[in-house]
Each structure stands twice: as structure tokens, then as C-alpha cells.
């Protein structure tokens, strides 16, 4: 009996929610009208949940072509007065960045919340270990950082309130261990509304919506003034919270790191089963004061200064780059110049944190013994890498490529999707990999620079997302890579979301029509199960003087069932 528990309207009741689902619930409680997204781990379940429920509850939802388009759609809805949510993963934020900066200048009409999900340790992220906190400095975007699903829900609600109050978009930054964490979440009331969509209205107001100079510089000034007002709000906000005793040592933290800090301070006991080394102190048994920051931007600077004023030592516990630590260093110059600041000297900058890393850092910070002993692996265990599913149509493409060309001689461009696994040692046909759509863009550059033989792979959803401008560039600036569009009729890697070429209705946009419209003559659409035809097409197209495209069309084995 699958019911949509997320729609349960029983205030005070607790239900188990994933961080991403809790964001959805928070948006529903806030009365969201318009939601857009492009799928990307670890943000995908936000869109997937709305995809299931939106029609029933009078919320407009779309999977947009890419994150920039998703944000622009959201901006349009906000300008028209609707409550809007836009969700994406970290790399999507890069794609959307061009639209983000002016949106922070113009501000919102309908309250707008953006969710940007980072993936420390790159569990499902090929291209870089990104930290979206940096956007605060670049875009002056407000950033709230929840630690767990309850905060995901509460902070999303709060973000809508802040957005409404200050007429500015607010970003919720999550990380994998927040977005993919579950816990019982206490519900609040859902607003009464039917299944009918709310219509907004765009009211002309060029002074607000047009960022043309010289107005744009006035807007920047207004924005900076607004940020200082919001800083006052942040100073008084309960989500920036001091807890614990008053001592001469303290901890400043936020997001998932806060949970590991509390684990170390409150919840940690050594396994009673482990023999303690001679003289080893068992529990850390500490009650250090902790400043937990719910706001990353704007920071409550006075609150931080008050917290560090009476400390001798402070430990900043944060994942990835030391943004917070640098801020504390800056604030300590006035508030407490003698303060000893610890952070990245005890905590790694690469990879996600784990409770034992934080426990160890706090032990060192407080001159206690690290209470966990290492178990040595008794034997070396072979590594199990992700791989293409049995029956995946990409196996057929791989097989045809091996038959058609000397893989040592040809350069293979990879892109973002399941076919990244062409780069695993067993397959080994991927010579570069960067960001969405780049297999084609970089192919053009290599072709121009070298003239070497090159095959660029790109998936169907990725083609629509960012492949088309790069394809047009190969025609406009005349290069001749062979582009193989791996068309499995879905956005497979992130959980089979629809895309413009494979919507639920059969009137999708055909990739071959786009290719033809670019004037590309060397074009074939082949089901890779027809190996001979595929092999011949690859051989023929690889020697062409103009760009060639093979669309390898066969549905993902997971949706075929």
C-alpha cells in the first residue's frame, strides 16, 4: 500500500523522510506553486517527488532542459508572483550561474528558494569536488545549511519566509549526507488548496526587472544594503545557535559537520567491547560550547565575535574548503587577536567528513586520546567498481567500436551519464571527461589542434542539456569529429527522468531532426543490436571531412522491462 505519506496533513505527526523529501515537504508547507529542476545526484529526489505528486496538489512542475533554463523558468514564475522552488546539483549551479547573479540583483516578486546539492567525496560526481558555498562570494546569494531532514524541512519553510520578507532568492545548500539522510520528521500544517494551478500575473516594472546600466549599479548598491539588513536578521535568528557550557575552548560548525561534532561530544562512548590501551581515556566526555551556524551567508558576525571573545582556542569543523575558518580568522582580528584557530590543520580539505575524523580532530584539539582503535583488514579485498548493467545497450556500442577501430589510435571523448563507465579498466575507451556536453566541445578543439581521429560520446539527455551549441560549433567552425549520441530514451543515470526527446507522450523532439537542421549530412540512426551496420557506419564516418553523427538508439534495459 503505497500512499503519499509526504502529503499527510497531521501537524505534530512524525514520518520518516529523506533530506530531499523533507525539502519537498517544507516547500509544500510554505505553499509552493511552481517547481523546476534538472536531475542530478544528490538532488534528484526533489524533482522526482514533485513529478509524482504535483498534478494532484495544484503545483506546476517541470524537468527543464538544463539547470540554467530551470532557473530562468523559476525566475519567470517568481517575476509573475508565484512561490517558486528550483533544485539542482552543484554542477547544475555552474550552468545556472549566468542567470543567478542578475536574479539576486533584481530580487524576487514571488518568494523563491533554490536548492543546490554538493557531493563531497564525489560519490556520484565525476567532474570536480565542488563547494557551492563559494557562490555566496560571487553572487551574494543567501545560503542556509541544514544538517538533517528535520532542518531541511524547517529551513526550506524559513527560506520562503526570508525570501518574502527581503524580496531576495534564498539558497538551501545540502550535501550528499544531508540530502540522502533519513530521520523521523515532525510535520506542520499543509495549506488548504485544491488541485487547481494558481495563475500568476506579470506586472510591468522595468526598474525592478531590467538590469540595464546604469540601473544595474544602483541595484548592486541596493543589494549590498539589503544584505546588511539580512545580516541583522541572521544575528537574531534561532538557526544560528550557541549550545553547551562556557569554557575556554569552543567549536564552530554547520551542516552535516554539526552532527559529527555532537556525536563526538554528546553521543560518543567507545565500544564497551574494545579493550582500551593502557592509560587511554575512554569517552571524550566533553561539554564544549558549540556555535552551530544555519546561515552561511550572510554570517552573523557579531554572534561569532561574541562566541570567540572569551575563548583561548576555537576549532572550526567544516567539510571541503575552509570558508568558515577564514571568516573566523578575519573576525578574530578585532574580537580576540590572541585566539588560536584550528581547522584544516586537523581536518582534511579533500573528501567528506566522517564521525571518526571529527572525533579524532576534537580529541587532538582537547589533548585527549583518540578513543577508537583501528581494525586492520586481515586480507586484501578486491575493489568492486560500478559497471554497466547486464543487457545495457551501451555494451553493444562498445562492442561495435572495438570491431570498427583501433582503439589505441582513436581518441575517445566521454561525457556525463552511465557511459562514463566506458572509462573503467575493463572497457577503457575514454580519453577525456569533463562536464555536461563537453565531449563535443572539447572534440572540436582537439580536432582543430591536431587532426587526430576522434569519437565523442554523448547521451540523449546530455545532448539536449548542453550538446547542441557544441554541435553547431563543429559545423560553424568546420571540424570533423564523429559524434555518437547514445540515445537510450531516458535520463538513466539519475533515475530515468523524462527529457525533451523522450517524454511520456510520443511527440518528443527528434535528435536527428536537430542534427539535420544544423546541415549535417553524415547522419545515421542505428539500433546498435545491428552490429554490422553500426561497425560500417563508424568506419565510414571516421574518415569524413565534415562532422558526422550516429544516433545509437535503443532503450535503457531498466525501462524496457
Amino acid at each position, binding site marked *: *500500500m*503505497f500512499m503519499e505519506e509526504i502529503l499527510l496533513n497531521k501537524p505534530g505527526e*512524525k514520518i*520518516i523522510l529523506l533530506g530531499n523529501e523533507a525539502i519537498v515537504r517544507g516547500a509544500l508547507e510554505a505553499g509552493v506553486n511552481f517547481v523546476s529542476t534538472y536531475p542530478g*545526484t*544528490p538532488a*534528484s*529526489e526533489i524533482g522526482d517527488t514533485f513529478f509524482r505528486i504535483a498534478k494532484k496538489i495544484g503545483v506546476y512542475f517541470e524537468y527543464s532542459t538544463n539547470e540554467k533554463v530551470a532557473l530562468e523558468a523559476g525566475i519567470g514564475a517568481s517575476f509573475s508572483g508565484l512561490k517558486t522552488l528550483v533544485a539542482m546539483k552543484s554542477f547544475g549551479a555552474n550552468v545556472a550561474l549566468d542567470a543567478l547573479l542578475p536574479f539576486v540583483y533584481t530580487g524576487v516578486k514571488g518568494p523563491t528558494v533554490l536548492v543546490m546539492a554538493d557531493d563531497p567525496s564525489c*560519490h*556520484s560526481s*565525476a567532474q570536480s569536488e565542488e563547494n557551492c558555498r563559494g557562490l555566496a562570494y560571487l553572487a551574494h546569494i543567501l545560503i542556509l545549511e541544514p544538517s*538533517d531532514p528535520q532542518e531541511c524541512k524547517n529551513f526550506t519553510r524559513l527560506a520562503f519566509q526570508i525570501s518574502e520578507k527581503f524580496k531576495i532568492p534564498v539558497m538551501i545548500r545540502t550535501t*550528499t*549526507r544531508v540530502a*540522502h*539522510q*533519513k*530521520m*523521523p520528521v515532525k510535520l506542520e500544517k499543509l495549506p488548504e488548496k485544491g488541485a487547481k494551478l494558481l495563475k500568476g500575473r506579470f506586472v510591468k516594472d522595468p526598474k525592478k526587472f531590467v538590469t540595464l546600466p546604469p540601473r544595474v549599479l544602483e541595484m548592486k548598491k541596493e543589494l549590498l544594503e539589503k544584505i546588511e539588513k539580512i545580516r541583522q536578521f541572521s544575528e537574531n535568528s534561532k538557526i544560528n545557535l550557541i549550545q553547551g557550557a562556557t569554557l575556554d575552548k569552543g567549536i564552530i560548525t554547520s551542516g552535516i559537520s554539526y*552532527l*559529527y561534532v*555532537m*556525536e563526538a561530544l*554528546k*553521543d*560518543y*562512548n567507545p*565500544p*564497551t*567491547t*574494545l579493550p582500551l590501551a593502557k592509560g587511554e581515556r575512554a569517552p571524550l566526555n566533553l561539554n564544549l560550547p558549540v556555535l552551530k551556524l544555519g546561515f552561511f551567508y550572510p554570517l552573523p558576525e557579531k554572534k561569532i565575535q561574541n562566541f570567540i571573545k572569551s575563548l583561548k582556542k576555537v576549532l572550526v569543523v567544516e567539510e571541503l574548503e575552509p570558508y568558515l575558518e577564514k571568516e573566523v580568522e578575519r573576525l578574530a582580528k578585532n574580537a580576540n587577536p590572541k585566539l588560536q584557530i584550528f581547522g584544516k590543520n586537523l581536518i582534511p580539505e579533500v573528501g567528506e567528513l*566522517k*564521525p*571518526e575524523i571529527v*572525533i579524532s580532530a576534537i580529541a587532538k584539539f582537547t589533548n585527549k586520546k583518540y578513543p*577508537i*582503535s*583501528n*581494525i586492520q*583488514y*586481515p*586480507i586484501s*579485498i*578486491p*575493489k*568492486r*567498481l*560500478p*559497471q*554497466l*548493467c547486464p543487457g545495457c545497450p551501451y555494451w553493444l556500442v562498445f562492442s561495435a567500436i572495438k570491431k570498427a577501430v583501433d582503439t589505441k589510435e582513436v581518441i575517445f571523448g566521454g561525457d556525463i551519464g*552511465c557511459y*562514463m*563507465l566506458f572509462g573503467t*579498466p*575493463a572497457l577503457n575507451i575514454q580519453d577525456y571527461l569533463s562536464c555536461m556536453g563537453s565531449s563535443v566541445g572539447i572534440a572540436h578543439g582537439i580536432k582543430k589542434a591536431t587532426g587526430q581521429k576522434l569519437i565523442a560520446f554523448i547521451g540523449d539527455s546530455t545532448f539536449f542539456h548542453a550538446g547542441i551549441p557544441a554541435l553547431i560549433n563543429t559545423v560553424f567552425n568546420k571540424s570533423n569529429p564523429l559524434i555518437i549520441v547514445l540515445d537510450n530514451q531516458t535520463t538513466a*543515470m*539519475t*533515475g530515468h527522468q523524462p527529457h525533451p526527446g523522450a517524454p511520456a507522450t510520443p511527440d518528443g523532439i527528434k535528435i536527428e531532426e536537430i542534427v539535420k537542421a544544423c546541415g549535417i549530412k553524415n547522419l545515421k540512426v542505428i539500433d546498435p543490436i545491428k552490429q554490422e551496420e553500426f561497425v560500417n557506419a563508424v568506419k565510414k564516418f571516421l574518415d569524413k571531412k565534415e562532422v558526422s553523427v550516429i544516433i545509437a538508439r535503443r532503450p535503457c534495459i531498466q525501462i524496457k522491462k
Partner: protein
Amino acid sequence: MYPDKKMRQFNMLIVGTGGQGQITLLQILAEAALLEGYDIKTSELHGLSQRGGSVEVHLRFGKKIYSPLVSQGKADLILGLEMQESLKACYYANFKTNFLVNKFIQPISLVKNLTKEEVLKNLKKISKNVILVPAAEICQKELGTAVVTGVYLISLASFKNLIPIKSSSILKAIKKLIPEKYLELNLKTFDLAKG
């Protein structure tokens, strides 16, 4: 039985390979723990990392739980759906950790795999509480499918008191979470584990 008699917290992992249903098992156990009034945290991974690779999910419950990840050396129970993956999870084990492991090896291509005997011998070096059950084989034989292996193992863990959740709560959670058309099979699996 448990390191902490007051059940301040219980730490467990379910390990295996992508597609073995870890996330559903986690959902069932979390729901059952909620029925018993515990605070709960879980951690799981989605996306590319699932595609046939190693998958480990974490479940912690007790009076008040902060971290969604089990700390190194703190697991009370490691439930292994695959033997080599179970051995990998020894990072989280101490010598009293209970291992409940499916007697099954999913071979890793292109490398030398460990044998069942090698895995068992080494698991026993880590913990004195290792239980190896041919769960997939039993489910295949009795129910005609190994797809319910995980549900068999979590039910078994409850009947064997390896997890401080009443089997009746697990049954309730199965009834709540498993879609209608698979429910009968899962209820049979639960009964099979009861023995």
C-alpha cells in the same frame, strides 16, 4: 546481548552490491524502529554509485541519534548480502560485532576473487560472532526467487535477537511499505525466516 543495555543506540550496516535492495531494507527497518519510538538516522547513496558497485547503507537508532553514519569500529550488526562486501565492512566492526551474512559471492570481473572459505576465515579473525546463512539459496528453494533474500535476513536478524526490534514491528513495516503485488511473497519470506 547489546553493548549498551539501555539501548542508548544501535548501529548497523547493510552491505552488498548495487541492486540488492538495500534502500528498501533500510526503509523497513527504519519504519519498524519508528514504531518502537526510537530516534533514527539512516544514510544511503543514490545515482551512479549504485550501478553494480559496492553499496553500504547505515542505520542507527536509539534515544537520540546525531550522525547518520556509523563510526569506525562501532557497528553492533553488519548484515551482509554478499560475502566479500561483508569483509570490506570490517572497518566498522569490533570483535563483538554480529555479522549475519548471506552465503553468496557476486564475482568481481577481471580480478582474483576471494573464496567463501577465505571470507569466512577472515571474518572470524575480526569477530567471534559470525553467522553465515545460505539465505539466497533458501529463498530460491522455498519461494522460487532469491529477490527476497534481504527481507529474509532482516526478519531472521529480528527472530535471532540480533537487532533490538520486535519481529511484529518488522512485519507491520513490511505491510506498510511493500507494494500490494509483492506483499504476499514478502509475508511468506517473513514466515520462512521465523522457521
